[in-house]
């Protein structure tokens, strides 16, 4: 009997245990996959904000280029600023239009007059920000100073929370999957105890006896991971437009989601599947190996 036939027979003869194993794996990988994508996206957002100017100075409605030039000169004189960029009311309107091009209603209501001019300031070192703040706040026409650091800190807090909660859940589900695989394979070992004894007596190597069980555990892992991958891909496809409109300014998200049939999107999806399937195989195979060591002495 070919090995593959024998493994398929193992699975087919106890369909409920097999289904329980695949479903547990599916849940683990669904949550694990979503957690992995959420964490990766959070890091992408974080990196995006970190690469942005470290603070933005918003001017009052009446202030404009002249106030910005004075402030720019003052800041450059400190020697602590690496670059500054003036964004006029018209530039701000252009950015706003680009960001909301899919929503004509929002575009109709906004004119350049109601948007503030701003100055994006990048310090040579983040530590200089505290020294620059009083100079900026004391300048003419300044309404508000927004630190990217604040945005980054908030994001970091969220990312850490997601990482901790998601990580703990994924870990618990991973342990649960391992235990389920161990139990299912343990039952199958008990059912095959006589066959294993015979194989040992006719000279089967320990690996020859272990292999079908390890592959069976691996198949449960790959099946569960594959099903989870399909669901995650469907979820991404359904919410793609919303994600792009909300996070499209982040280059990596724009690159991956703007065109679902681009080679880079397909390659990334295939890579994501490979990681999930490989992890599934390792998790399932590991569960089987632990069970084999526990229930049979080779």
């Amino acid at each position: 009997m070919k090995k593959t036939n024998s493994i398929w027979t193992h699975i087919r003869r106890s369909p409920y245990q097999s289904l329980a194993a695949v479903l547990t794996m599916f849940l683990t990988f669904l949550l694990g996959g979503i957690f992995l994508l959420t964490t990766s996206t959070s890091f992408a957002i974080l990196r995006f904000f970190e690469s942005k100017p470290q603070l933005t100075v918003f001017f009052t409605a009446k202030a404009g280029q002249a106030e910005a030039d004075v402030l720019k000169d003052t800041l450059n004189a400190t020697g602590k600023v690496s670059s500054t960029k003036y964004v006029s009311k018209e530039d701000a309107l252009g950015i706003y239009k680009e960001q909301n091009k899919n929503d004509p209603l929002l575009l109709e209501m906004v004119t350049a007059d109601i948007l503030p001019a701003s100055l994006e300031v990048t310090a040579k070192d983040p530590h200089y920000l505290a020294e620059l703040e009083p100079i900026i706040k004391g300048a003419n026409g300044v309404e508000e100073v927004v630190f990217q650091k604040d945005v980054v800190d908030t994001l970091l807090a969220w990312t850490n929370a997601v990482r901790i909660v998601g990580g703990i859940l994924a870990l618990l589900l991973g342990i649960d999957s391992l235990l389920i695989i161990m139990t299912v394979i343990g039952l199958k070992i008990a059912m095959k105890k006589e066959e294993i004894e015979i194989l040992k007596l006719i000279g089967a190597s320990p690996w020859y006896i272990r292999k079908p069980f390890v592959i069976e555990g691996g198949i449960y892992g790959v099946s569960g991971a594959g099903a989870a991958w399909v669901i995650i891909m469907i979820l991404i496809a359904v919410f793609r437009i919303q994600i792009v409109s909300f996070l499209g300014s982040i280059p990596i998200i724009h690159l991956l989601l703007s065109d679902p049939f681009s080679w880079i999107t397909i390659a990334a999806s295939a890579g994501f599947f490979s990681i999930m399937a490989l992890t599934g195989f390792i998790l399932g195979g590991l569960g089987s190996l632990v069970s084999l060591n526990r229930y049979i002495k080779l």
Partner: protein
Amino acid sequence: MIRFDHVSKKFGGSTQALSDITVEIPDGEFVFLIGPTGAGKSTLLKLIIRELVPTEGSIYVDDWNIENLQKQQIHLLRRYVRMVFQDIKLLYDRTIFENVAVGMEVLNKKEQDIEKGVRDVLALVELRDKADQFPAQLSAGELQRVGIARAIVGGPKILLADEPTGNLDPETSEDILEILKEINKLGTTVIVVTHNNTIVDKNKKRTITLRSGKIISDEMKGKYHFAKRTHHDKKHDEKEEKHTHEKD
């Protein structure tokens, strides 16, 4: 070559299954191992395939010292020394072909070699036409031949047969013995444990007689002549049986 050097085997520290056994079986020999039930015949075979380890003494199978064998090497010994089991030990959910093929699959042989090897041994044991049947469809004699086929399919150097003719009619027993002799002619050392006096007397092969765990005779053209069981034998059997139950 198989060599037992002052080998003893005790179960549970008290039941003496074998006592100070020293014997040598050269390559290519055909040996009958006889003796009353509980004399230690099956124990002796189990020691050769290291299903059991001796309490005292040493066992050598060619260059292997059985007691020093690492766990990872036991399967190599069992490929070299194959056994036909008293209860045959077939896989009842597999066909006859598949049951015999397992004997070669464990050796990691190629599929076409397995196909040819299995067809050849099934022809040798005259079961070619039963290849696609399941064990439940075969008679006791045919099942015994399947057990022999599985044992010889990988070309072992030594073949141990534990009561291969038990529960078989005289004619089928003769057939089984002819197959074993055929295998022996091909160069395989064959050790047959039996209670069948007819086949022992008729074939005039080397015969080792065990009683109460000791060798009481070893004759080159032996006969089935061990005396009827003594009171001591019966007590020994009772002890061993009690021990087996405790183990279960």
